[in-house]
């Protein structure tokens, strides 16, 4: 492999490693010393080649490749800096209607209210407000770039609980073990291992009739995997105790269907609610310019005639 081929290969690897931060943001990999070392070595190899090529060590084509290498260096440098000095990946959660300060962005995340339909459709939103800026609604799909951070939403399991007593009176739903005390929306901050998988777990109470309920979330796929549950749609497995700890019963509550355990009637509407993810990533504008320079340089090197190659001209035939 010639030094030029090596440089181009290393440039492609460095570009790939950096692009990954934007394509698949939030991986721990980007903050490891191995990732930093790989980009550091790539940068040194590329600088070394470009230095020599600029001085003519690889001919005119090499000088053009050196320009391409500058583009790759800009990208790799951005990737290295984002991994080194960008923030570690942060997940910001909040209950519907709540506000969560996000110190790393000097902003506050506003989580929209949610009714059962919003939870079912996964249509709730998160808006970021920063002093002196207009509010930014983070799109359900797609990303925002703020400085060296990429901001996007990921969906977490959620269930909207409507609880009634035996007479049909609606009951207050509280979450005594969670950060939001008054909310009928469960966001499952814990997990319960079962067989070889973990399932989202949450707890709520209906103090009006002294019941405490543990709820295990099964997606439609999970429910189908557990044949004996007898449901093919997403469902909660509810374990009901009284507030003295005595077990009242266990039942399965398929999404949207009312079930009764003793004098507690529960309708759980299952779906998702957004949480904000903030990860370090180089700005796409830097990547776009870097890629433009890189491919421009490579194209120029391999398509334009180079004086260091012999130019074959047709010999005129003698009449």
């Amino acid at each position: 492999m010639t030094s030029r081929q090596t440089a181009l290969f290393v440039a492609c690897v460095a570009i790939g490693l950096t692009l990954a931060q934007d394509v698949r943001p939030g991986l721990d990999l980007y903050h490891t010393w191995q990732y930093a070392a790989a980009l550091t070595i790539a940068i040194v190899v590329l600088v070394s080649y470009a230095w020599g090529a600029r001085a003519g060590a690889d001919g005119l084509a090499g000088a053009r490749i050196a320009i391409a290498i500058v583009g790759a260096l800009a990208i790799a440098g951005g990737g290295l800096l984002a991994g080194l000095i960008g923030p570690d990946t942060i997940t910001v959660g909040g209950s519907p209607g709540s506000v969560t300060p996000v110190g790393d962005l000097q902003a506050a995340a506003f989580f929209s209210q949610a009714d059962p339909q919003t939870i079912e459709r996964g249509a709730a939103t998160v808006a970021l407000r920063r002093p002196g800026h207009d509010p930014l609604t983070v799109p359900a799909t797609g990303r925002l770039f703020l400085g060296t951070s990429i901001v996007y939403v990921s969906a977490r399991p959620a269930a909207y609980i409507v609880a009634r007593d035996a007479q049909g009176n609606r009951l207050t739903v509280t979450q005594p073990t969670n950060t939001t005390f008054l909310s009928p929306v469960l966001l499952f901050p814990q997990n319960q291992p079962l067989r070889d998988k973990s399932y989202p777990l949450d707890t709520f109470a209906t103090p009006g009739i002294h019941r405490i309920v543990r709820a295990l979330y099964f997606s439609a796929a999970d429910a189908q995997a557990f044949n004996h549950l007898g449901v093919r749609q997403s469902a909660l497995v509810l374990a009901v105790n009284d507030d003295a700890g005595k077990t009242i019963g266990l039942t399965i509550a398929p999404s949207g269907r009312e079930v009764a355990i003793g004098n507690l009637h529960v309708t759980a509407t299952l779906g998702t609610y957004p949480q904000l993810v903030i990860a370090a990533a180089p700005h796409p504008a830097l990547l776009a310019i870097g890629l433009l320079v890189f491919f421009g340089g490579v194209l120029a090197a391999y398509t334009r005639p180079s004086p260091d190659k012999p130019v074959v001209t047709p010999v005129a035939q003698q009449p």
Partner: protein
Amino acid sequence: MRCLTVHVHSAAARVAVGVIVLGILVGGCYSGGGPKRTIDGGSGGPGSLAGAPAVSYTVKRLDGHTDALARYRGSVVLMNLWATWCPPCRQEMPALQQFYRENKSRGVVVLGVDQGESAAAAATFARAHGVTFPILLDADEQYGRSYAAIGLPTTVIIDRRGHVVRGIDGELTLAQMREAVGSALRAQ
């Protein structure tokens, strides 16, 4: 051949020196790949809301009409979040009713906001306790969440400009209600 060897050596030396120098720089910046952090929107309790704009939701009132906190902009409002099952709420209710009677002529609004219960339960409770101030039915517990209630009852004082003056967790006496609203009235 000798020339080529020299060139390779110098390139290798350049790379080695570069790796060492950049390695030192990168090592200096490297803080270790820390674990992913999670911030779960904890509520700082109702006391943390002082000075914030008072959020409002349109909900049903006990008399069947719709109502919202925003409708009382221009008045000092004492908003009380409560539920029928809550013993301290039951204890506090006579004082709240007394406070309402004392202050309605002064333009102070008292709003009771039932958290997540049926109109029938709230109406029975209101009748039993002789409540005459407006009761809102917050079936989705939106006020409870937005005002960071960490228990019931929760009382929030809102000034005429629609900002939270104070958020208080727990049962209040009549004297404490007078003091909390009095400071909001004096401030304007």
